C-alpha cells in the first residue's frame, strides 16, 4: 500500500511539474515570436527621436548615399543598399529628424555584423518588424488583417508595412491633429493597393467613385480603405463581410449632407431593408452574422468595384434590361417583367410602384372600416346584454328568482 501511494503522489507531482513546464514552454514560444521587437532598444518615449545618437545619418550616407552599393543575397538576388539622402530628408521620418539607426538598430558600427537573407522578399520581411517600435497599434492591426493572416500562413507576398508606405520615402497621410486623411492622400491609396490588386484597381478606376477620385480628386468618394479598412483589412470573401456590407455602403449613402451634394436619395438603406432581400439580410446580420445567405446585398446589383451610376445610359441598372442581367445571376429563369418585382428603392407612391401603393391605400381604409364596424356592433351587443342583465336583476330582486321562462320573455319582448 505505501508503495502504491508513493507512486501515486509521484505521478501526481510529476504531472503537475510537467504541466507547469508546458505552460512555460508555451510562453517561451510566444516570446520568441516577438523577440525581434523586444530586442530593439526601447527608448523611454518611442514617439520622440532619441537625442544621444552615436552614429549620424551622414556617416551612413557616406557609403549608402552612393548609387550602386549592393549586396548579393543567398539565392543570388541583388539587394540595392543605396538610399537617397534627399528622399529620406523629404519623408515624414526625415522631416521629424529620425535617424537611420533608429530603424536599422542591428547594423551597429562599421564593419556591420554579418547579416544576410534568403532573398529580397525575405530581406524586406525581416526588416519590416522595426515599424512596430513606434507604430505598434497599426502593426498589430495589420497582423490581424487578411494580409497578416496570409503572411502567417506562409504567403510571403502578403503586404507588409513598407509595401504600402515604402521604406525610405514614407509620406504623411493623415492630419496629425484630426487623424483625418489629408486631401492629397485619397488619390494615393488606390495606387498603393493597385501594386498587387491591379485588376480590381482597373475596375475601380472606371467606376463612378474611381472616376470622381482620379479625375477630380473628389474627397467624398470612397477609396479602397473606406470600405475595406486601413490596417485591419478583413477578408471580403466571408459570409460575415457579405452580411455586413450594406452597412458599409450606408455609411455614406445615408449621410444626408453628403448625398445632398449629389442629389442622391438617402432612403436607399431603409427601402432595401423594407424589401424582401434586405429584410432577411438585416435580420441575419444581427442574429447570425456568419450565416451563408444568398439574398442580394448592395453590390450584387450595383457591382463590387465597377459600381456605375444607376442612370448611366449604357450600363445603369435603372434600365430594366441591365437589372435583369443582375437578377438572372440568382433567378436564372427570370424574364423581362421580373425586375419590376423589386421596388427599386422607391417608397410606393402614385408615381412609383402604383399597384403596391393602391393596395396599401385600400387597406388603409379597409382596416378601420372593418374593425370600426365590427367593434361598433360587438360593443353595442355587449352594452345591450349588460344593460338587460342589470334590468332583469332589478326587476326580479324582490319576488321570484329568475327562471328560464322569464329570460325568454325579456328576449322576445
Amino acid at each position, binding site marked *: 500500500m505505501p508503495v502504491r501511494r508513493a507512486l501515486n503522489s509521484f505521478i501526481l507531482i510529476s504531472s503537475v511539474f510537467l504541466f507547469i513546464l508546458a505552460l512555460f514552454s508555451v510562453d517561451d514560444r510566444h516570446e520568441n515570436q516577438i523577440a525581434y521587437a523586444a530586442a530593439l532598444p526601447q527608448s523611454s518615449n518611442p514617439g520622440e527621436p532619441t537625442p544621444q545618437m552615436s552614429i549620424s545619418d551622414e556617416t551612413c550616407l557616406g557609403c549608402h548615399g552612393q548609387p550602386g552599393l549592393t549586396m548579393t543575397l543567398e539565392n543570388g538576388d541583388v539587394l540595392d543598399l543605396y538610399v537617397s539622402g534627399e528622399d529620406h530628408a523629404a519623408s515624414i521620418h526625415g522631416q521629424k529628424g529620425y535617424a537611420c539607426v533608429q530603424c536599422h538598430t542591428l547594423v551597429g558600427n562599421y564593419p556591420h555584423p554579418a547579416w544576410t537573407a534568403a532573398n529580397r522578399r525575405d530581406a524586406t520581411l525581416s526588416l519590416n518588424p522595426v515599424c512596430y517600435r513606434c507604430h505598434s497599434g497599426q502593426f498589430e492591426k495589420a497582423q490581424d488583417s487578411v494580409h497578416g493572416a496570409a503572411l502567417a500562413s506562409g504567403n510571403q507576398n502578403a503586404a507588409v508595412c513598407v509595401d504600402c508606405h515604402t521604406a525610405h520615402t514614407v509620406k504623411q497621410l493623415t492630419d496629425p491633429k484630426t487623424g483625418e486623411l489629408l486631401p492629397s492622400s485619397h488619390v494615393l491609396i488606390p495606387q498603393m493597393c493597385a501594386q498587387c490588386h491591379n485588376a480590381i484597381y482597373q475596375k475601380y478606376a472606371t467606376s463612378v467613385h474611381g472616376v470622381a477620385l482620379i479625375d477630380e480628386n473628389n474627397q467624398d468618394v470612397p477609396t479602397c480603405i473606406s470600405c475595406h479598412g486601413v490596417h485591419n483589412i478583413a477578408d471580403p470573401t466571408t459570409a460575415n463581410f457579405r452580411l455586413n456590407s450594406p452597412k458599409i455602403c450606408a455609411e455614406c449613402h445615408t449621410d444626408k449632407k453628403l448625398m445632398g451634394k449629389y442629389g442622391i436619395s438617402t432612403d436607399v438603406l431603409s427601402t432595401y*431593408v423594407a*424589401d*424582401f432581400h434586405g*429584410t*432577411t439580410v*438585416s*435580420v*441575419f446580420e*444581427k*442574429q*447570425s452574422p456568419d*450565416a*451563408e*445567405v444568398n439574398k442580394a446585398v448592395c453590390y450584387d446589383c450595383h457591382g463590387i468595384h465597377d459600381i456605375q451610376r444607376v442612370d448611366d445610359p449604357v450600363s445603369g441598372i435603372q434600365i430594366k434590361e441591365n437589372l435583369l442581367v443582375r437578377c438572372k445571376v440568382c*433567378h436564372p*429563369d*427570370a*424574364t423581362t*417583367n*421580373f*425586375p*419590376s*418585382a*423589386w*421596388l427599386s428603392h422607391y417608397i*410606393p407612391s402614385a408615381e412609383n*410602384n*402604383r*399597384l*403596391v401603393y*393602391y*393596395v*396599401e391605400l385600400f*387597406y388603409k381604409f*379597409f*382596416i378601420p372600416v*372593418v*374593425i370600426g364596424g*365590427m*367593434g361598433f*356592433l*360587438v360593443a*353595442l*351587443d*355587449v*352594452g*345591450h*346584454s349588460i*344593460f338587460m342583465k342589470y334590468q332583469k336583476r332589478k326587476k326580479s330582486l324582490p319576488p321570484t328568482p329568475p327562471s328560464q321562462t322569464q329570460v*325568454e320573455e325579456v*328576449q*322576445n*319582448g
Partner: protein
Amino acid sequence: MSASIRNEEAPVRAVHIFRRFTLSQRWEHWILLLSGSILLLTGLPQKYRTASWSQYILSTPDRVKAIQTIHHIAAAFLILLVLYHLGKGTVLLARRKLPGDIFPNRKDLIDAWKMVKFLLFISKEKPVYGKYNFEQKVTYWFLFFGIGIMVVSGLILLFPIFVTRFLPGGVVPAALMSHSTEAVVAMIFVVIWHFYHVHLERLNLSIFTGKLNEDEMKKYHALEYKRLMAQTQKETETGGKS
C-alpha cells in the same frame, strides 16, 4: 335540412335536435381552423421580421427555411380545402341542390338595421333569422374572400418568376403587401367578430357537434325552426320520408 325527432319517456315532451352541419362541413371547419392557425403562427414571424421576438424565432437561415416549409405545407392543405369546397358547391349547383341559405339578400340588410335599432333601444323588435343570420353570413363571406386573396397572393409570392411571365412585375410586391395585410385583417376579424359571436355572446359549438337543440333553434333561428317544423308536420301527415 331534415329534423330527427327523439321521443323521451316520462314527462311527455318531444325534444327536437336539429342537424345544422353535415359531417363534411364539420371536417372542413376543422381543416380550416388547423391550417389557418398554423399559417398564422408561421406567417406572423415572417411578417414582423423587424420585431425582436420574430428575430429570436427566425435567427438563422435554417429556421427561416423550416418555418417557410411548414407554412407552405399548411397552405397546400388550405388550397385543397378551397378546391374541395368550390368543387362541392359547383356539383351541388349543377344538380340544382345548392342550398341558398348562405347567400346574402335584402333581408340581411334589413335585419342588420333592425338589430342596430334593437341594440340602441330604439326598437323593441329583435330580428328573426333563417338558417344563417346576417352576422354568420358576414363571417362566411369575409373569410371566403379573405382566403381567396391569401391563396392568390400567396401563390404569386411562391412562384414570382412564373407569374411575371404573364403579369407585370409590380404584382409581386403588391401581392406581398396584400398577403401580409389581409392576414392581419383576417386574424382581427376572427378574433373580434367570430370569437365574440360563438364564444362570448353565446357558446355555439354547432360547427363541431353539427347539432342545435330546439331552444336554440327557436331563439336564434326562428324562421328556420318554423319552416322545418312545418315541413316535418307535412311529412308526417303525408307519410313522406324525411
